[in-house]
């Protein structure tokens, strides 16, 4: 928003902001209506992609778990597929997707309900990645040891 309204609002902008806007190289303008958001846009894109991915995993996961009602043999055969090395790597991706969606979901909730949430949304976006890294460092080695350790 600041970039677009810079002309009209230039006088109302704090000095630092005004300078930053004026120094922006004009040659980089993209014509048309391409929205190039920053952290907020990418958090939305990733939240949407992870949400859809988790949803389709959940559909499959309910169906494979339903096999416990059929027979122990059927369930064990299908769950065995989750214990192969390739699926083990896929589970790292799944936990990574859920981890981002969950942490960024909490960020969305804070932006909506915390009185100063909007002001700190960018900081919280990077905080999401810090917590996500901690989560993955805790999860990945132990999980891969379970998968590949026999």
């Amino acid at each position, binding site marked *: 928003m600041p970039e677009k309204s810079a002309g009209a609002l230039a006088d109302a902008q704090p000095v630092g902001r005004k300078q930053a806007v004026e120094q922006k190289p004009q040659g980089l303008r993209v014509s048309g209506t391409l929205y190039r958001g920053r952290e907020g846009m990418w958090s939305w894109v990733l939240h949407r992609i992870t949400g859809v991915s988790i949803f389709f995993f959940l559909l499959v996961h309910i169906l494979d778990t339903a096999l416990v009602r059929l027979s122990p043999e059927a369930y064990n055969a299908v769950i065995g597929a989750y214990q192969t090395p390739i699926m083990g790597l896929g*589970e790292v991706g799944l936990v990574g997707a859920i981890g981002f969606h969950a942490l960024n979901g909490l960020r969305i909730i804070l932006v909506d309900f915390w009185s100063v949430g909007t002001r700190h949304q960018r900081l919280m976006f990077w905080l999401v990645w810090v917590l996500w890294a901690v989560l993955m460092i805790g999860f990945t080695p132990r999980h891969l040891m379970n998968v590949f350790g026999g």
Partner: protein
Amino acid sequence: MTVSIETPRTLPQRRGVNWEKWGWIYMRASGVVLVVLIFGHLFVNLMVGEGVHAIDFAFVAGKWADPFWVVWDTLLLFLALIHGANGMRTIINDYAQKPGLRKVLSWALLGSTVVLLVLGALVIFTFDPCPAGSPADLLPSFCGDIN
């Protein structure tokens, strides 16, 4: 001739429940609870003991012998699937421009969601940990005491 002009700044009267608002609230309320339910689920199934290698029929039967995990998994099923389905509804409404396509996708989503909720609930609540005729080494150890 008199012209009556609507009073400015009056919003059109809306009737009935504001479902979109409750959907919005549900996404946030269920999200907070799902953080606990999902990470508890992942921790107990993937991090404790041998992790993913320990999961088999006997593992599930052992968990569902405890009402605690029956309640946990039922809440997980309903909260997560309804949260995900409502999120998918938002996405369908964003991208499916043609009314016909939107209708088809929305009904398919509702149908598959209801089927999976009913299926999942039936599986949890009609589960038999010691099905007759199954090899004992596939069953939880407590089946020996019953049969």
